[in-house]
């Protein structure tokens, strides 16, 4: 499976995905990674795409705002509509909401501080069937407060689009939301970093695997049954 990883200027989590995906999931999912530089004219054909965390364009205007308006993102939207799995983590999630590929917005944390620590996440049972009740996964963000209006929230709930909730809300997110999917279910965005909790020796938790394995399985399904 080929996974394309986007690189905007200051997408500083880019290397993490290039290192982590093959290291932690290479064998099980025969993953190869491909770098997608933001100025490329065409979107390389991949089985799934990752929008990594970071500070694309230095968070100029708003986090993710400039990246979401790059020409390549329009092409990514077409791919999303065609059902290609797309995962945005942290700044990647911000890019997805800014580009309206996911509903809602990400605002500065309630207390205004950057926050980096392990959080306990409650995964959506209907989606993550095998996962334990809570997952220990770190966050690292200054603008991670998920916000949406009541109508959007109702839709998210009714369509089971809420992927992950915080057990203890760290940033003031609406309904403790840590991650969501689009209505189709193929575009995922989340503030916690599952890629940082994929090998137990690093930081003591590999709970991020439950999230990433599910995402990669979705991509694999599509490869088998296009």
């Amino acid at each position: 499976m080929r996974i394309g990883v986007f690189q905007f200027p200051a997408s500083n989590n880019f290397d993490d995905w290039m290192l982590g995906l093959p290291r932690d999931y290479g064998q099980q999912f025969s993953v190869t990674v491909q770098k997608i530089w933001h100025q490329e004219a065409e979107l390389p054909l991949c089985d799934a795409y990752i929008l990594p965390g970071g500070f694309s364009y230095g968070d100029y205007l708003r986090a993710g705002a400039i990246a979401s308006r790059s020409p390549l993102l329009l092409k990514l939207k077409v791919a999303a509509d065609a059902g290609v799995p797309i995962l945005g983590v942290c700044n990647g999630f911000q890019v997805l909401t800014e580009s309206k590929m996911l509903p809602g917005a990400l605002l500065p944390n309630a207390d205004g501080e950057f926050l980096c620590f392990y959080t306990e996440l409650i995964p959506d049972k209907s989606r993550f069937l095998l996962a334990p009740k809570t997952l220990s996964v770190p966050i690292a963000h200054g603008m991670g407060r998920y916000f949406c209006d009541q109508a959007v929230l109702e839709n998210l709930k009714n369509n089971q689009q809420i992927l992950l909730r915080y057990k203890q809300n760290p940033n003031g997110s609406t309904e403790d939301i840590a991650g969501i999917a689009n209505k189709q279910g193929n575009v995922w965005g989340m503030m916690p970093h599952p890629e940082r909790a994929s090998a137990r020796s690093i930081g003591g938790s590999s709970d991020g695997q439950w999230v990433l394995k599910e995402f990669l399985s979705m991509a694999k399904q599509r490869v088998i049954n296009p």
Partner: protein
Amino acid sequence: MTSTKTPVNMPQKLPALACLIDESALDTLLPKHKIAKDEYGILREVMGRAPTISELGVFSAMWSEHCSYKSSRVHLGRLPTQAQQVVVGPGENAGVVHIDGDYCVAFKMESHNHPSYLEPYHGAATGVGGIMRDVFCMGARPIANFNCLRFGEKTHPKTKNLLEKVVDGIGDYGNCVGVPTVGGNLSFHKSYNGNCLVNAMTVGAIHKDRIFKGFASGVGNYVIYVGSATGRDGIHGATMASESFADSADDKTKKSENKTTIQVGDPFMENILLEATLEILDRNLVIGLQDMGAAGLTSSAVEMAGRAGNGLYLDFTRVPIRTKTPLTAYELLLSESQERMLMVCTPEKWPELEKLIQKWELAYDIIGSVTDTARMQVVFDGALEVDIPVGPLTDAAPKYERPMAASPTYVAQNAQISFGKLNWQKELEEVLKAKPCHADVYHRYDQHIGLRTIFGPEHQGAAVVWPQSDWTKNKDVGVVISAACEEDLTAENASLGTEHAVLKAARMVYAAGGRPLAITDCMNFGNPEDPQIMRQFSDSVDGMTIACKELDAPVIGGNVSLYNETGSTSIHPTPMIGMVGKIEDVHRAIPAALLGRYKKNTEKSISVYWLGPDEWDHSWVGSIFARVKGIKTNDLAAVDYGYETTAGAAIHSWNEKTPLFACRDVASSGALATILKMVACSQKVAVHLNTPKEIDSHTFWLARNQGYIAFASELAEALPPGIKALSLGEVSFTGTSELRLDGQALNMLNLHNAWKGGLR
């Protein structure tokens, strides 16, 4: 994109020299440039004439304490710098030490004290930016940041704001560049009321055959400016960092005068410059490359030309600027605008280099060429602004053997203190409050980016970073990083206190399962013109020399920050030690605290041991409890290096046989608070402890001692001679929260809260 840049060739005939300074105005000009009268005499000899104002600026920067180390150089030569593992020693942008296979790390710690006191947010941020550039301009990718902070008393009106802004500055910068902050230390002491310390350290990964040094060689080669455009920020930063602050009474006026000497950072630009620089070095596109750090364009040009024995011809009309009103040559020379690099490349490589710079959308221009004149020549606005011989500029830099007070004789005296009946609950809460949990600080730093952080700051001990590089032979090898300085000890005795600082850093490395390789030192002291301070400095160098030799961990780079003085109050001597060590298998690294998410796998109860020298020893100097109680003693213990290295080895062999759940040196908190910190992340823990027989319980639990606390399922069968282990009790994760000491129950929740809330 196509090129619009043209080469800068030195003309046959140079333009006329700019106006020379009016030497009748020296009385105002020299103090403004912090050049002493006799130093001006040397300048006159080097130049053979009066300087232009720009030249005076160049001398002022290059001969400042900050750039020339004029007070400290005579002492620094005594430090040990050689060992088998040392690849690059002091004198370069950063030192390099060998880890495994072709994999090395470059590292250095640097101070940004003066700017951080005046403008804490930008001062701290640009301190982090500067040290990262020192590391990556050698071709090393930064993999870990560390920071060591000292502030005045928590009750001092300035402390809260300084702490908040400094931490924000460090966090915002490091987080955006994308380098994890994996540890550091922080303490409060009244000697820092008028001068905070911000010492930042960066560790970068580098291939042993690709270590880059900045040379301006090859006559006719291009000199390229890359990065942010130049503004007026940071002018005279280097000279400002080389003087004391006036009394706090006129703090405000000092502040407004000094504001323009503070640099403003842009971490987004730093990230791009980092990626661009590493790509440039990787593709071998340049001959020379140097960060424009302290003294900006001046020092980077002089250093690169000096190393190659060449001259530089620079046309300053080419320098990209960001100000509305044009800068003068003087300002361009001395601006310390951030995120800028000076590069030298051959005309053949230039097209490829230019394409790469354009790809990263960085500002750039060809600003000069390498010459065979051995002079630094700067033209601007049709005048020759600078024409200085490069060699003499650096070689003739003043070097002082400043007078020193007599070395104090220190006779340690055993102190037996009796406390009668202690209220353990109250005393422990005070100790935990005085040395509080730093979670509120480090959660503002991204600790995990890079996927290499085995142990970060929340583990409370040495950081452990996993390279996962193709360059290592051993795929499990790890880099261990620690930093330490206990200012209570160095104030008591600068020499012995510095030995303890190196040791404390080493013990943290040992406790994590690693062994020390080398150190970087950041020497923070008061006014060197005071003979007492100069004595402290010299003694501290001697103490460091002993410890580094004994531990075979030489000094491979560092920085000296003097004039940390306000009014007539100097800081405590603070020789901050940053240590890099190595661990053979990161998967067997030992944390200094047992975090909640690890405990899922350790449901059984765990035994608590004290591991230390056969002859139980302690001191009250440096113990937090003594500080809180205002107890003064002079019982700082001499160091037994034989014990220290044996204890390090004993921890390793113990961990080989029965993996340790956690291990930590006792240090200033005392044994009991140390154990509490090792479990206090969880309130759901039961701790049952008993004082070892024949040892006074107050002394054992509260004094500073040379031992370690280890959590293990069982004791290793045989310990080497000279080391013993005492069983202290058990911790268990049964869901109830309690602490029992010799049968007496204490309130664990209140202790936990005292520790967690102590920073607020």
